[in-house]
C-alpha cells in the first residue's frame, strides 16, 4: 500500500521506541512519563483534550508491554507496574488483537446515508429500487430506516444527484472474516474465535484503537537478564526493511545481544522441497488442486471459515517451523525469536513448541533505535547458513507458487494461481474452488495483498521491499529437490 505513514501507526512506532528506551534506561521507573512526553500540554489535542489523548496512549503503552487493555483490573495501575509485571512473567503473552474501548470512536453503524444533496425528486429511484423498503420520504427528502437497511448500496447506485454517501466502518470493512463488530454501545469488539490475526483492523483504524500484545519486552529481558542464547530468525521479508546489508543487520543484532541470526529463507527452502513433493503426490492421487499453507492467517481462515477447503491445504509446515526446528536441534536450550512482518505468526508460534517469541520488524526497529544502533554502520557479520533463490522469493506474491513450480519441473503439469490478498472476494473464490474446482491446480494464498512485504509489521514501503527481496533472491543459488539443508 502506498499510504504515507499516518499519525495512528507512527504513534505506535513512537510508543514502542519509548518503551524499549524506558526498559533499557531504568527498567520502567519513569514509564509513566511516556504519555505525557508524547502529548505535552502545549500540543494540539487530537481527541477532545490532551488528557484523553494521554489516557489512550497509556492503553497503547499497555499493549506495547504485552498486556491486553480489555483485561485491565484497576485503572490506577501505573505503567511502571505494568512494566514490572511484564518483566516478571515467564512465558510470552498470548496473541490477542483487541480494541481500546475509550479510543474507539464508535463509528456510525449505518453504511449508507442520504445527504442534503437529495432534491426529493419525483422519480424517487432510491425508494423504488430499495429491496427492503427501507427508504421513505420525510419532509421532502429521502430517508433510510437503519433497522431495515441491509447495506446493499442500490440507492447509492441509482441516485441521479449522487446524494447517497457510503460511510464505512473502517475496521469492519477491512476484516475479511467478520470477526469485528459493535456492542450495544457501538464500540467495536474482536471475536477471538473468528479472528485470524491478520492485523487489517489494526492497520485500518483511523483512531489507532486496535492494539495487539507485543512480546518486545520479553525478548529484551531474555537478552539482557538471562544467560540464555537468544537466536533471531529473520523472515525472508527482511530484505529492504533496514537500509544496510543483511550482514550489517547481523552485526546490529549481535551488538544488541542476540547470540545468533538465521534466515527463515533457509526454512523456506525446506518448505519448497516438501511442498513440491507433496504436490506431485497429491496430483498423482487425482486431487483437483492444492493450496499453500505458509501464510498463518490464511491457514487459520481455512480452518475456521472455509472448512470445505481444509482437505486441499498443503500439510507441509511453514518456513518458520523448519527454521525453528533447525535452531532447536542445534541449540536445544536457546530462545528462538521469529522476526517478521506478520501478526498471525504470533498465533502460529503458540502451537509451535520450537518458537519462543515473535517480533515484528517494527518492534525490532524500535529496539535498535532505543539502543542507538544504526544498522549500516555495524560490522558486517556472516550468516551461518545459506538460503537459496526459491526460499528468498517467498515474501512477494507469486514467490511461493513459483518456488514450488520450479521444483515440480516436468514431474507434473503445474498450473499456478496467485490468490493475492485474503479479501472477501478471494474467500468466495476459494470456496468456489473447494466446491467445484477451477482452472488451476496450485493456489498460492497470501493474506496480505502483495505478499508478506505488505504485512502489518513492516517498516519499508512494500514496493521498495519487493524490489529488495527480488534483488537478494537473484543473488542466490538455485535450489534443487536434492539440495541438502541441515
Amino acid at each position, binding site marked *: 500500500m*502506498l*499510504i*504515507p*505513514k499516518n499519525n495512528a501507526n*507512527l504513534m505506535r*512506532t*513512537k510508543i514502542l*521506541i519509548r518503551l524499549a528506551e524506558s526498559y533499557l534506561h531504568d527498567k520502567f521507573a519513569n514509564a509513566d512519563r511516556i504519555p505525557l512526553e508524547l502529548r505535552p500540554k502545549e500540543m494540539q489535542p487530537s481527541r477532545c483534550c490532551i488528557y484523553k489523548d494521554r489516557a489512550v496512549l497509556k492503553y497503547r503503552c499497555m499493549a506495547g508491554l504485552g498486556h491486553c487493555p480489555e483485561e485491565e483490573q484497576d485503572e490506577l495501575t501505573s505503567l511502571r507496574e505494568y512494566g514490572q509485571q511484564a518483566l516478571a512473567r515467564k512465558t510470552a503473552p498470548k496473541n490477542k488483537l483487541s480494541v481500546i474501548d475509550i479510543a474507539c470512536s464508535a463509528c456510525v453503524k449505518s453504511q449508507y446515508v442520504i445527504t442534503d444533496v437529495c432534491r426529493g425528486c419525483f422519480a424517487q429511484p432510491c425508494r423504488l429500487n430499495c429491496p427492503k423498503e427501507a427508504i421513505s420520504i420525510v419532509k421532502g427528502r429521502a430517508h433510510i430506516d437503519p433497522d431495515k437497511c441491509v447495506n446493499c448500496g442500490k440507492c447509492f447506485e441509482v441516485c441521479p444527484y449522487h446524494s447517497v454517501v457510503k460511510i464505512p466502518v473502517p475496521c469492519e470493512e477491512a476484516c475479511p472474516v467478520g470477526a469485528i463488530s459493535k456492542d450495544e454501545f457501538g464500540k467495536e469488539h474482536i471475536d477471538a474465535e473468528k479472528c485470524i490475526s491478520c492485523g487489517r483492523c489494526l492497520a485500518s483504524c483511523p483512531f489507532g484503537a486496535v492494539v495487539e500484545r507485543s512480546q518486545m519486552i520479553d525478548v529484551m529481558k531474555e537478552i539482557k537478564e538471562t544467560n540464555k542464547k537468544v537466536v533471531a530468525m529473520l523472515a525472508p521479508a527482511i530484505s529492504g526493511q*533496514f*537500509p*544496510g546489508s543483511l550482514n550489517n543487520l547481523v552485526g*546490529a543484532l549481535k551488538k544488541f545481544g542476540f547470540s545468533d541470526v538465521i534466515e527463515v529463507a533457509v526454512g523456506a527452502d525446506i518448505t519448497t522441497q516438501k511442498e513440491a513433493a507433496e504436490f506431485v503426490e497429491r496430483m498423482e492421487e487425482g486431487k483437483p488442486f492444492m493450496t499453500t499453507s505458509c501464510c498463518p492467517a490464511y491457514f487459520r481462515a481455512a480452518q475456521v471459515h472455509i472448512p470445505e477447503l481444509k482437505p486441499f491445504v498443503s500439510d507441509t509446515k511453514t518456513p518458520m517451523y523448519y527454521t525453528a526446528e533447525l535452531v532447536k536441534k542445534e541449540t536445544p536450550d536457546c530462545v528462538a525469536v521469529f522476526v517478521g512482518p506478520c501478526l498471525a505468526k504470533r498465533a502460529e508460534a503458540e502451537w509451535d513448541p520450537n518458537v519462543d517469541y515473535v517480533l515484528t520488524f*517494527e518492534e525490532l*526497529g*524500535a529496539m*535498535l*533505535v532505543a539502543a542507538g*544502533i*544504526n*544498522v*549500516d*554502520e555495524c560490522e558486517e557479520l556472516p550468516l551461518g547458513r545459506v538460503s537459496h533463490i526459491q526460499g528468498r522469493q517467498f515474501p512477494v506474491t507469486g514467490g511461493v507458487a513459483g518456488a514450488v513450480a520450479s521444483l515440480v519441473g516436468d514431474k507434473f503439469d503445474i498450473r499456478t494461481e496467485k490468490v493475492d490478498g485474503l479479501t472477501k472476494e478471494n474467500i468466495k473464490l476459494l470456496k468456489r474452488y473447494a466446491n467445484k474446482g477451477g482452472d488451476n491446480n496450485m493456489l498460492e494464498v497470501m493474506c496480505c495483498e502483495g505478499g508478506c512485504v505488505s504485512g502489518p509489521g513492516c*517498516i*519499508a*514501503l512494500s*514496493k*521498495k521491499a519487493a524490489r529488495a527481496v527480488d534483488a537478494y533472491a537473484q543473488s542466490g543459488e538455485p535450489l534443487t529437490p536434492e539440495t541438502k539443508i541441515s
Partner: protein
Amino acid sequence: MANKVKVRICVGTSCFVMGAAQIQSLEFNAPADIADHIEIVEERCMSLCKDIKRKYRNGPFVFVNDELVEEATYEKVVGKIREQLKKS
C-alpha cells in the same frame, strides 16, 4: 525549470523506522506538479539524531535543497518542495 529540487531522505535506522521509509513513496506517487522536478537521494545517517537535544525524537530528517525538515512527513516534504519550486 532547469534545476531539480534535491530531496535527501535520511535512511539511518532511526529515521527510517520513524517514518522516512514512508516518505520514500515520493519515488512512486509524488503529486503530478512536482513529480518531474525532484531528485530523490537516500542519505546515510547524517548524525542529526546524535545531537542530544534532537535525538531520534525529531526525526525523520529530510533535506529539501539545503533546508532541513524535522519530524518530516510526506505532506511536510511535499509542501517544502513546492515552496522551493516557487523560489526558483
